[in-house]
């Protein structure tokens, strides 16, 4: 959970648009000497996350330390937090919730996703720095964005096959572009998909990596609709809720996506028009599939002249990594299943032991066997929690990133398409020029004169439409596409770097959380057996 509990938006290239109105130069931004963050546009007040719980002494809230951490686990302990605004959305001067790791870890696996109790301390101004590509790569952006989202309270609305689950999306922010500081709306799954559709149409042209929403599941949803309250439906809803939360967090973490009006609308607007193109079996759905197929074919036939080996190398890296993650995911899946088996078998064994204890006629032994049965029962509980941890923390992390790597590849594809467009424009231009040359040779002076005049007059592009000839049009297109291509290249590069940083952070924090859960598990195991040992020794 809280996969992106650390959200560090990358420094922005102020390259094309030198934005005005940047906030005051950084002060008090010395995070132990770390470099600061760059904001792109609006006066985003950046606030840092909260310090880690295990660094005992909390400095006064003015000092910002970076990486908020599994402090978020504390919030997860009960969904109750989501209603407790004061706790949750407490601003400024918020001390870090140093909850006892024990309790937090124990409950961290239970469904809830109370919004993090991370604080938004008083906004700290950030400095704007001119960025170049090298600087981008060197800088370590540590600040976290001042938007927190949480998804809670899944509720089934309606009945029968038209039923759906509505989730409460709560946002807490101090950005002024939003109407208020905290607000929440209700959204359903198709709304999330709709958001993704809109974003991909718009942003992907720029080469952004758009986070992916969780996948549709007809089977899972049907069960929920039909109204079965069995554990697998509950698990399904919880899984989806957690995935939606991670998805949304990634979206708001992404600096340029956050600026998007659709995102804001999604977060703020009370009544969102239903996204209709997201149904699996709709016409739009089929169209999408066809488009994807044709894209794939396209990809195979293009061979790009790569001037920058960075892209090619990166692409191969990404592919290799995706493969590895898939393998790992398969194994983790297997582990989850075996643990669930172990869980069931332990429960059955415990009962069997209890029966045996009952029929044993030596009293001390009988008691010891019953105790053993109880220990095994507790072990079952432990295994169940471990399996949940395996799944929700580890397996979901992996599957998220497998799909995100797919999105990264999509990014590269965008760049390739941009290149393609450029090349095509160039070849068209070439053809037009050849046509003109032919005219020349064909000795049609009038037409030639006309063309020449047009060419000279066309140097002024911004006004007289009459003077734009076809060639000039294409010339300008070629220039534009080349620029687009370069720009996408830069964006892709930047995005990939940001993605990698996020990924590293995500993996580290999630795996550490996973290990913490294992640790808790072992501690409890020790307690159980320690309680049992004297019973065993007491057999006479």
């Amino acid at each position, binding site marked *: 959970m809280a996969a992106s509990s650390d959200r560090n938006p990358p420094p922005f290239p102020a390259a094309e648009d030198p934005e005005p109105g940047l906030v005051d130069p950084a002060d008090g931004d010395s995070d132990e000497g770390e470099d600061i963050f760059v904001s792109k546009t609006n006066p985003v007040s950046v606030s840092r996350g909260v310090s880690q719980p*295990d660094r005992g002494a909390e400095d006064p809230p003015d000092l910002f330390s970076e*990486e908020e951490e599994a402090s978020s686990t504390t919030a997860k302990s009960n969904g109750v937090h989501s209603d407790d605004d004061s706790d949750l959305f407490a601003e400024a001067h918020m001390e870090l919730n140093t909850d006892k790791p024990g309790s937090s870890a124990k409950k961290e696996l239970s469904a809830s996703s109370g919004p993090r109790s991370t604080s938004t301390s008083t906004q700290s101004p950030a400095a704007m720095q001119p960025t170049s590509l090298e600087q981008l790569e060197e800088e370590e952006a540590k600040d976290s964005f001042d938007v927190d989202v949480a998804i809670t309270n899944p509720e089934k609305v309606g009945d029968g096959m038209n039923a759906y689950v509505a989730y409460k999306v709560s946002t807490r922010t101090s950005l002024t572009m939003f109407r208020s500081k905290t607000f929440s709306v209700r959204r359903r799954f198709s709304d999330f998909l709709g958001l993704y559709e809109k974003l991909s149409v718009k942003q992907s042209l720029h080469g952004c990596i758009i986070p992916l929403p969780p996948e549709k599941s007809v089977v899972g949803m049907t069960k929920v609709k039909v109204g079965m309250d069995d554990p697998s439906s509950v698990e399904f809803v919880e899984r989806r809720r957690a995935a939606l939360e991670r998805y949304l967090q990634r979206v708001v973490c992404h600096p340029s996506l956050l600026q998007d009006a659709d995102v804001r609308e999604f977060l703020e607007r009370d009544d969102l028009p239903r996204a209709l193109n997201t149904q699996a079996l709709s016409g739009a759905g089929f169209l999408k599939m066809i488009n994807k197929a044709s894209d794939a074919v396209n990809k195979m036939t293009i061979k790009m002249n790569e001037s920058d080996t960075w892209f090619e190398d990166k692409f191969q*890296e990404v592919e*290799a*990594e995706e493969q*590895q*993650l898939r*393998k*790992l995911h398969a*194994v*983790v899946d*297997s*582990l989850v299943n*075996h*643990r669930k*088996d*172990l869980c069931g*078998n*332990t429960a*059955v*064994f415990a009962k*069997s*032991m209890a*029966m*045996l204890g*009952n*029929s*044993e*006629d*030596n009293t*001390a*032994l009988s008691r*010891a*066997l019953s105790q*053993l049965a109880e220990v095994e029962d507790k072990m079952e509980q432990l295994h169940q929690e471990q399996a949940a941890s395996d799944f929700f923390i580890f397996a979901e992390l992996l599957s998220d990133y497998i799909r995100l790597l797919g999105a990264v590849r999509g990014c590269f594809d965008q760049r390739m398409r941009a290149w393609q467009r450029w090349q095509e424009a160039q070849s068209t231009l070439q053809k037009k020029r050849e046509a003109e040359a032919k005219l020349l040779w064909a000795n049609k002076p009038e037409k030639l004169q006309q063309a020449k005049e047009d060419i000279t007059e066309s140097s002024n592009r911004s006004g007289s439409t009459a003077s734009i000839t076809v060639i000039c049009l294409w010339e300008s297109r070629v220039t534009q596409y080349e620029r687009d291509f370069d720009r996408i290249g830069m964006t892709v590069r930047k995005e990939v770097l940001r993605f990698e940083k996020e*990924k*590293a952070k995500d*993996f*580290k924090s999630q*795996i*550490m959380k996973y*290990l*913490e859960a*294992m*640790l808790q598990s*072992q*501690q409890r*195991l*020790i307690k159980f*057996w*320690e309680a*049992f*040992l004297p019973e*065993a*020794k007491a*057999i*006479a």
Partner: protein
Amino acid sequence: MMEKYNRRVKAADVTTPQSSQYGFLTGLSPQSTLPNFKQNEFSVVRQHEEFIWLHDSFVENEEYAGYIIPPAPPRPDFDASREKLQKLGEGEGSMTKEEFTKMKQELEAEYLAIFKKTVAMHEVFLCRVAAHPVLRKDLNFHVFLEYNQDLSVRGKNKKEKLEDFFKNVVKSADGVLVAGVKDVDDFFEHEKTFLLEYHNRVKDASAKSDRMIRSHKNAADDINRIASSLYTLGTQDSTDLCKFFLKVSELFEKTRKIEARVAADEDLKLADLLKYYLRESQAAKDLLYRRSRALVDYENANKALDKARAKNRDVLQAETSQQLCCHKFEKISESAKQELIDFKTRRVAAFRKNLVELAELELKHAKGNLQLLQSCLGVLKGNT
């Protein structure tokens, strides 16, 4: 005659899984005064079939009807291991060299563990026989221990196995009939009901414990593969994240070993215990059956005697027959009582020992695991 057998079992050099040979080094302590044994220390090589032969000879011996015959050691089962080895061989192409060698080592270790276990079970059988005041004097037993040539015991051929099968069917049918006879003696009546229920529940518990432990082993195997996978991820590059992966992979590798050990220990201390008492309780049930059978025979002989006396024909024959039955029954009853009491004592002691050891081992492993996790987390947190 106080004899103490010191028995050390040394595994013979087993080259293939099929062979089931066991070498036994039998030592007698200096206090031995048994005249039959020519030396103090001697060793022979025995096959599994020969153990079965010995066991069966006890069972068939009428003299031992009143004793709980120590259950025969189970047939060594290397099938599972062999299957896994085969699958590994087939899948060799699909994994890296390191993975392959690692898995091969795993399987070899597993095989060795199974082997050690079966050897131990054979040893337990012999020790039980040696500890029994009457059985230890059995001639076959001495031959078994001493005769350093092949005993030429062949496994049962098909015909004999079929005979055995029918014998068992008859026996269980008979057992049902005989069990219906209510015993006058409270002690035996109680034992009968107790053993019946106990046996069934032990059977159940034994099967369930096996399943549970198998799941545990599967989970440990998965962790092994996760460790390998993380290792591959970690070696792709030398970024921070990759170093992280390597560290975690190392942790999982160690953790997995511990988990596998936990499963193995549970197997040894819990599953094997239950299996053993499954077989012993069956042997105890068999004893009760024989006693009941003898009782029924005795009662029948009484009836026959009465009839003979009434007809005044073959009275002497009936009398001797009745005497024999009576004698047999009483002999069995007497020893059976003691045997059953001993059985209880043994059982309680064995459970105590194993449960204590189980708990101690679980604690040891959990603490080991905990320490691993703590130190790894410490390192990882320190690095980030």
